[in-house]
């Protein structure tokens, strides 16, 4: 329908414009006021009044035609292209004139006079005769009766005192003694709970108009202040110095600050905060002085040098005369403790993971583990009698009648190896990480950490050359094991727990929760009732086995992972070595009285090991008789602190 309407309007326009239309043929287009691009693809451009198609001219003008036309046609300037009929129209002189006039802003009609004198619609002259000649009413001269009645009523009411003039309103507030009858007992309960608003902070020197020079900000400080957010600023304003009071300007944020205070007063939650007012000295626990807890190692006295790679493990002989160390440079070295001399160096076929000297003083045997082998060595140091009796002990073995299949193969060393000191070789199915002797010196345990099988811990009996696997089930990755010094208990440390087994009854007695992420080492007090655990998350847990399965104390003394812990056999001392290169010696007194808890006092921080490849101290062990501690480190040295 819109199209129809368009068409009709176009028709009308066409009628009115017919005087302008000068084309000889009446080829007015009836498509209406539509974009002519719509007919781009058709041969025609619309319909004439008869409904016949109006066809486009056969040849369109191109640029060249246009140009030629421009050059040759003298009427080019007055030719207009009509899109609707696709024809050129030459404007007549009148039309050109009209265009010129419109361009100048003049009226289109030539004959229109824009400066005609104006004629008033009504005359402005006063006539002598009025429009109506009606005389004025009488009632406009005499007073109104109704009004009189009303007024007399009001007058009567005023006379009778019914109507009073309005009292002027009291605008100024009246003050009186509000607290005249002050009753302290009448205080509301709510008021007791009320938290009064804290007072505004009192100004400091920096707010003065003339502060001491040190309170003024330097150029950099000022820049920093300007760049900071308003909340982060330490001072809410810039300190300024004025030479005299007259020069002090108004503070631009005064109203702001007052307003913020108002907001604080009614929008901020209030809370009573207890401020801790303690003397920091009182917080430090009162411990016995280290001086009174002597003896303990205080200074480094000897450095045992010789290894070329990190020293994994050390062990002292039961007499305290010798020290054995195993290193990643595939050697085991024997040292004389007092002189620091290397007595012997034995090459083994792998990086030594652990060494352990037989605790029995009547036997001279050292267990060394590397790769899948546990080697029992006779270093031939010390008393000859002991050395020879040890050899005899090993050779005195008689194989049993029926040969049982064992988890490891026992092999007696002969020839060259025998001369080097090798006595027995135990070949394990998997890589061995740790060897531990039982206190009596006959049993030996080895650890093969493996998450997937139950064959992780083996107990060997040297005299009978027998091997047992005590566990049927895998309870997690075993980190280290240890024998109870007096009773038939066996301690197995997995990643997070230490399990205590009774070897005779063959059952689990206790499971200790260490609260550590990953246990690295473990040591048992010579009394057998206490245990310490070092862990890779910098903690040392002390367990009192009689007390609880949870640690009696957690010590976080080291900054980095603990690698080794050790108890002293006679003195109430224990030590821990960690990756931060320090050995911390603590006094750990255990009382016979069951009611008294152990006393733990750190007595000395021993430093000396250099940190190499993020590793510091790898193993610590105490001298069996003296209050001395050995430590082996990743810097290839072993150090003795006395």
């Amino acid at each position, binding site marked *: 329908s819109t199209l129809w309407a368009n068409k009709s309007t176009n028709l009308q326009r066409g009628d009115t414009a017919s005087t302008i239309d000068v084309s000889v043929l009446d080829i007015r287009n009836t498509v209406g006021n539509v974009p002519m691009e719509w007919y781009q693809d058709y041969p025609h451009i619309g319909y004439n009044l008869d409904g016949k198609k109006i066809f486009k001219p056969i040849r369109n003008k191109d640029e060249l035609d246009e140009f030629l036309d421009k050059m040759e046609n003298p009427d080019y300037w007055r030719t207009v292209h009509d899109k609707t009929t696709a024809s050129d129209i030459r404007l007549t002189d009148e039309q050109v004139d009209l265009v010129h006039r419109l361009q100048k802003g003049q009226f289109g009609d030539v004959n229109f006079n824009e400066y005609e004198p104006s004629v008033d619609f009504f005359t402005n002259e006063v006539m002598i005769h009025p429009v109506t000649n009606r005389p004025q009413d009488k009632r406009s001269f005499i007073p109104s009766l109704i009004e009189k009645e009303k007024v007399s009523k009001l007058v009567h009411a005023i006379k009778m005192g019914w109507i009073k003039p*309005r009292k002027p309103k009291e605008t100024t507030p009246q003050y009186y003694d509000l607290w005249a009858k002050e009753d302290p007992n009448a205080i509301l309960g709510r008021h007791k709970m*009320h938290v009064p608003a804290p007072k505004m902070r009192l100004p*400091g020197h920096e707010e003065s108009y003339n502060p001491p*020079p040190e309170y003024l900000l330097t150029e950099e400080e000022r820049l920093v202040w300007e760049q900071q957010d308003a909340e982060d600023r330490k001072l809410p*304003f810039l300190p300024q110095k004025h030479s005299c009071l007259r020069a002090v300007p108004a503070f631009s944020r005064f109203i702001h600050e007052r307003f913020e205070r108002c907001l604080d007063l*009614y929008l901020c939650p209030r809370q009573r905060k207890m401020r801790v007012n303690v003397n*920091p000295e009182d917080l*430090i626990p009162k411990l016995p002085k280290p001086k009174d807890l002597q003896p303990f190692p205080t200074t*480094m006295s000897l*450095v045992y040098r010789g290894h070329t790679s990190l020293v994994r493990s050390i062990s002292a002989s039961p007499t305290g005369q010798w020290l054995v160390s195993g290193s990643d440079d595939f050697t085991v070295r024997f040292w004389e403790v007092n002189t620091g001399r290397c007595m012997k160096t034995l090459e083994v076929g792998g990086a030594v993971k652990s060494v352990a000297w037989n605790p029995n003083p009547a036997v001279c045997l050292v267990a060394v583990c590397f790769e899948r082998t546990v080697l029992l060595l006779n270093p031939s140091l010390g008393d000859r009698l002991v050395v020879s009796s040890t050899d005899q002990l090993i050779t005195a073995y008689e194989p049993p009648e029926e040969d049982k299949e064992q988890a490891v193969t026992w092999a007696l060393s002969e020839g060259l190896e025998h001369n080097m000191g090798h006595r027995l070789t135990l070949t394990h199915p998997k890589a061995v990480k740790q060897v531990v002797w039982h206190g009596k010196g006959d049993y030996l345990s080895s650890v093969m950490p493996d998450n997937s099988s139950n064959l992780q811990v083996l107990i060997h009996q040297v005299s009978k050359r027998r091997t047992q696997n005590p566990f049927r089930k895998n309870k997690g990755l075993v980190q280290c094991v240890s024998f109870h010094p007096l009773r038939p208990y066996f301690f197995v440390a997995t990643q997070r727990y230490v399990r205590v087994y009774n070897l005779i009854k063959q059952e689990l007695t206790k499971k200790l929760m260490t609260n550590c992420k990953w246990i690295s080492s473990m040591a048992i007090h010579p009394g057998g009732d206490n245990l310490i655990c070092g862990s890779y998350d910098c903690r040392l847990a002390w367990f009192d086995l009689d007390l609880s399965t949870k640690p009696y104390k957690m010590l976080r003394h080291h900054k980095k992972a603990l690698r080794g812990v050790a108890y002293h056999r006679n003195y109430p001392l224990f030590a821990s070595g960690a990756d931060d290169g320090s050995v911390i010696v603590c006094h750990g007194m255990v009382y016979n009285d069951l009611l008294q808890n152990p006393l733990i006092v750190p007595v000395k921080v021993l430093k000396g090991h250099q940190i190499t490849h993020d590793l510091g101290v790898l193993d610590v062990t105490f001298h069996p008789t003296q209050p001395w501690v050995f430590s082996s480190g990743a810097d290839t040295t072993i150090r003795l602190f006395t």
Partner: protein
Amino acid sequence: MGGLQKKKYERGSATNYITRNKARKKLQLSLADFRRLCILKGIYPHEPKHKKKVNKGSTAPRTFYLLKDIRFLLHEPIVRKFREYKVFVRKLRKAYGKAEWTAVERLRDNKPGYKLDHIIKERYPTFIDALRDIDDALSMCFLFSTFARTGKCHVQTITLCRRLTVEWMNYVVTSRSLRKVFISIKGIYYQAEVLGQLITWLVPYQFAHDHPTDVDYRVMATFTEMYTTLFGFINFRLYQTLNLVYPPKLDSKAESELKAEHEEDYAMDSESYLEKLSALSASLARVVATAEEEEENQLDQFPADGEDLENMEAREKEQKEQEAQNRLFEGLKFFLNREVPRESLAFILRCFGAEVSWDKSLCIGGTYNVTDETITHQIVDRPDIDKQYINRYYIQPQWVFDSVNAKMRLPVEDYFLGVTLPPHLSPFVEEKDGDYVPPEKLKLMALQRGEKHVQEEEEDDDDDDDDEEYNDEVDDEDLTEEKNLKKMEDQRSQGKTLAVKVTPGKVKPWETGSVGNKVRLEKEEKAEEKRLAIMMMKKKEKYLYDKIMFGKKRTTREANKLAAKRKAHEDTSKAEKKQKKAKKQ
């Protein structure tokens, strides 16, 4: 498991709190009215301990009020007044719309209003409670009294604030309770001790305000409404305690003195009276005319022994000092030049018993002229003045402030015309040990103890002497300061938990056996002991300890920074001085 199932959020903390919007709905008030009510009644939001529980599991940020508080608001009679006012506005708008002017007038005349007296009484059950909370009221009223009457708030409010502040200042003058003053970049701080309460307020400088657009003046006006009521009652009570007439009247003697001249300059009588009062130059009328106000209120002597006696003596001493301070400027005659802030100076000087006057063109109430020969001090704040009288000191205004804070008349030489002023220190700072004390304060403290101002004089001498001596002195000073710095650093480093290193092959100092080594050794041992003990601290205590030590370290660091800055400044200024001298020669 039996019994009724417990529903969540129907007991415990969830029921003790109410959100702001719910509270508003419960009170049937618009937010603006709710705010007004909270301001007037002193209700503030509460932060619940477990926000999630109170917020019924949601963690959206919400404002919580105690339900008890809101219930308490329900019974407030003012709430009804708010609603009445709302109705009034509606009626008025309607009347306007219908162009019923008589109705408009009638409505206007019966505009509902309310009084805050009962709220004040309820919020401050005792007078001391009210007095304790007056700091903000004072600051606010002083601010509002400086506003121009341009429609930021009602003119009545401004005049009322002005009246109340003038009354307050008159009270402080009469009771002589001003203690400390401080010129800051924000304005002038005053501290008065009224009935044992320390009251501090801030007065802006007398300039036209540049009204900020991001400030809600409605909130401020509501506060002011409350404060003016409170303040008026307090003023009334305070005047009563001093036997003064309220509203204040000038002493009849003073009034007649003032009346003689220039009465016709002031158009309105009521205004001129307030002006006269605000001039602070005359004393106030009393209910019972006392002969002379100076009755010594002696402390009663009670027989006491031991500690009590000591306390008593201390108190007595304090009181004596206080009295001495109150008479600080007694007998002095001041004249204020045009360029100094008249009101604050007149207020301070009058508080300490001085006589003050000013130019007649400046303000009403000046009692004598510049030409008066008995004037002892003229306060001037310009570099030079043409005509100077011989028998008076021309001093800068800071002298008055510093003298009040020092509780003694400071030597006037430092404050003469055109002299570079010494720094103006805040009297509110009380340094604890470890804090930085500016050297000016040390000097002042020495002066207060009665020591002579030796160093200054020496320095002056040195300036006249050779350069060498001057140098020596500089070095000495430098040394002492360096020592101080070192000491501070030492103190700081003691707190650190730095482990002593055991280095290989170190010969132990006891083998050398000297005394100094022994002392050091002992010190080291002590430090190590402490370190080891710190290792054994419990986690919680360790945290607290570390926090305390961190704070201590920070304060020392800041103090050191200030000291170093001061030293650098002094070095540069001295070098400049020297250069100048060299140039002269």
